[in-house]
């Protein structure tokens, strides 16, 4: 009997411990269970938080860079701003999350960001296997090489034995391996994490050529002191349709992202600009414009947005053409031609479905 009281005490102690531990474990189990279902109604979440979390590049001239006021700007950033304007009515209500080629997908999958607008190539496995939805193509790109003119190389096929700087975790890494394998030539890959590190390694001569999307090459070349000593080789070794993407499973959110992009492209086609959008919103004799800008029909309500969603999106940074010209076009230091990214009627392949 003398021994029994310690047993009871011990029992009680353990019971108390269990009582303390159990709620924690239960909470863990519940949170694990919640992981599967936390995806729907992104629109409500974004509206509630009042800010759009947009994943962008860590820094790529023209696409995502800090301007002279220290805020983020660029082609990819302009899309974030347009989307924030469409959803929240204010293009400045964006929280930018800078992501490398490697951590962009986990960031999107885990819900750290609402949308990824980071020159990301639309591929089968990313769309299907990784559980994302690409909402369209914002820039038709292709992979190329940049090298010093002094190398005397005319074509990428002459690069047998060269050292090639490459951003890891990108489609370009895979295209590169394919290209050299198919052409039966050797190379030394020099893996780099970000575009700015690749720039340093390339300029230091660690590699003979740097490969990435040609838009990125032009952007990077524009930052070189001796830009004229470098050339982009004529070969384009891949198709790189770049576009924004969202998590799969919330069709409403994907629709909003898709049609904001389409609105920017259609705005260029119909001649709606940042300057005249307010005027046009009062009503025009083009019903397509009227539907887009909300003076006819109820497209905004179908998306769960305000009537003036497209007006706000266009006012944020202008239509597709205006955004392109401001950040990438011939007048900028990057100096890219529209090329494939011109409207279909101008010889490009940009063709947005009708606003109907």
């Amino acid at each position: 009997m003398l021994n029994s009281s310690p047993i009871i005490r011990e029992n009680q102690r353990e019971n108390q411990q269990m009582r303390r531990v159990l709620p924690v474990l239960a909470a863990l189990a519940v949170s694990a269970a919640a992981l599967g279902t936390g995806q729907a109604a992104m629109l409500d979440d974004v509206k509630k938080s009042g800010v759009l979390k947009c994943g962008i590049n860590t820094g790529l001239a023209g696409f995502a860079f800090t301007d002279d006021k220290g805020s983020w700007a660029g082609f990819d950033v302009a899309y974030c701003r347009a989307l924030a304007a469409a959803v929240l009515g204010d293009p400045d209500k964006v929280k930018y999350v800078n992501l490398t080629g490697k951590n962009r997908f986990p960031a999107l999958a885990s819900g750290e960001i609402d949308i990824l607008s980071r020159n990301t190539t639309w591929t089968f496995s990313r769309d299907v296997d990784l559980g994302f939805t690409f909402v369209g193509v914002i820039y038709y790109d292709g992979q190329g090489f940049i090298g010093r003119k002094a190398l005397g190389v005319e074509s990428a096929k002459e690069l047998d034995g060269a050292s090639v700087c490459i951003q890891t975790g990108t489609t370009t890494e895979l295209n590169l391996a394919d290209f050299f394998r198919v052409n039966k030539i050797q190379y030394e890959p020099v893996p780099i994490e970000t575009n700015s590190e690749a720039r340093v390694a390339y300029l230091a001569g660690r590699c003979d050529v740097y490969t990435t999307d040609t838009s990125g090459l032009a952007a990077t070349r524009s930052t070189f002191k001796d830009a004229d000593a470098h050339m982009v080789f004529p070969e384009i070794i891949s198709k790189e349709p770049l576009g924004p993407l969202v998590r799969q499973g919330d069709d409403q959110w994907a629709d909003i992202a898709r049609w904001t992009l389409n609105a920017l492209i259609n705005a260029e086609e119909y001649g709606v600009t940042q300057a005249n959008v307010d005027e046009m919103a009062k009503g025009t004799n083009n019903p397509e414009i009227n539907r887009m800008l909300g003076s006819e029909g109820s497209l905004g309500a179908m998306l769960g947005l305000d009537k003036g969603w497209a007006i706000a999106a266009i006012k944020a940074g202008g239509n597709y053409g205006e955004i392109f010209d401001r950040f990438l076009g011939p007048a900028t230091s990057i100096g890219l031609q529209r090329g494939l990214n011109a409207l279909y009627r101008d010889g490009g392949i940009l063709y947005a479905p009708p606003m109907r």
Partner: protein
Amino acid sequence: MRQGPAGRASAPLRGVLTDERARGLLFQLAVVLVLAGLVAVIVANTIANLQRAGLASGFGFLTDPAFFDINQRLISYSSTSTFGRALAVGLLNTVLVSAMGIAAATVVGFLAGILRLSPNWLVSRLVGVYVEVTRNVPLLLQIIFWWTVLTALPKVRESLSIGGSVFLNNRGVRLPAPLLEAGFAWVAAALLVGIAAAVAVSIWARRRRDRSGRTFPVGWAGLALVAGLPLLVYWIAGAPVGWDMPERTRFNFRGGLNVTPELVALWFALSLYTGAFIAEIVRAGILSVGKGQIEAALALGLRPGQTMRLIVIPQALRVVIPPLTSQYLNLTKNSSLAIAIGYQDLVSIGGTILNQSGQALEVVGIWMAVYLSLSLLTSLFMNWYNRHIALVER
């Protein structure tokens, strides 16, 4: 101990409840079982939900082709090899730089630790500066520093050449690579025999010294056996090693062995950084040996070198080994900073696989399991060594 078995024998159940030890075990077992059950439920639940969200779909992807290239391969690998093989290449690269780093850090650390106690003012201060500077600058910066220094070497076309066979440039060091021919097995065998013989000689010499007090030049004999014997066989077998010489090509060198600046930068940074910590550990170990021990050794007529080797170091090692082990573990784990300069170690390649396959949880799981295994293996070995040299108390 005494009442336990007797109690159980007479009345088993009451024995368990009244025997303090058995009772303790019983309840602890119960708690462990309940906890294990809960953990199992949570894990199963999490896995099920992750699979529903498409976030974890098992390790099947390891047999898919990788389709990317790796520049430093210790085993054969091409872009059509599997993800699993790519991970193995990365693991070997991690092991390589860790092993090189541990070896160099140990040498640097022991030298610096001993030299810091040198009576020579200049030497001890210089070593002091080395220790304080490297210990107090973040390792990541040191890695980037060395990489920057190495990539500032001459460009490929202006490579520094040593005797026309070794080339130094900002893409690394090109060395002639040995090509082993048929007779080389004999040389390898001779090396093994030499090592075994050297060990035998040292055991014999110690026994003889214990018996008769006469010493034997174990160091020289060992060197002759370990180095001389294979060299002799190498010569007799007609030099069965060919050399694959580096050849200049349009962009780079072809052939030979290329040691990349990434590997060298990482190796330097890891060795010097960890070496500084080891130096302090060694210094503490030496200072922990009583002054009387040294005075007694000198009084007995041992020379300073012998005093260090036979009296101070063996006693210092007992203090040094446990913290040394954790430095080795740190070095191995720190090697994952390789990613900053693009050395393709396990983390770098795993990250690429993670991104190309989307299997984030699986890859992170593999990372953790591998580093845990590497650390446990190192610990096991060092604990064995620690027991081996521990003071035998009588």
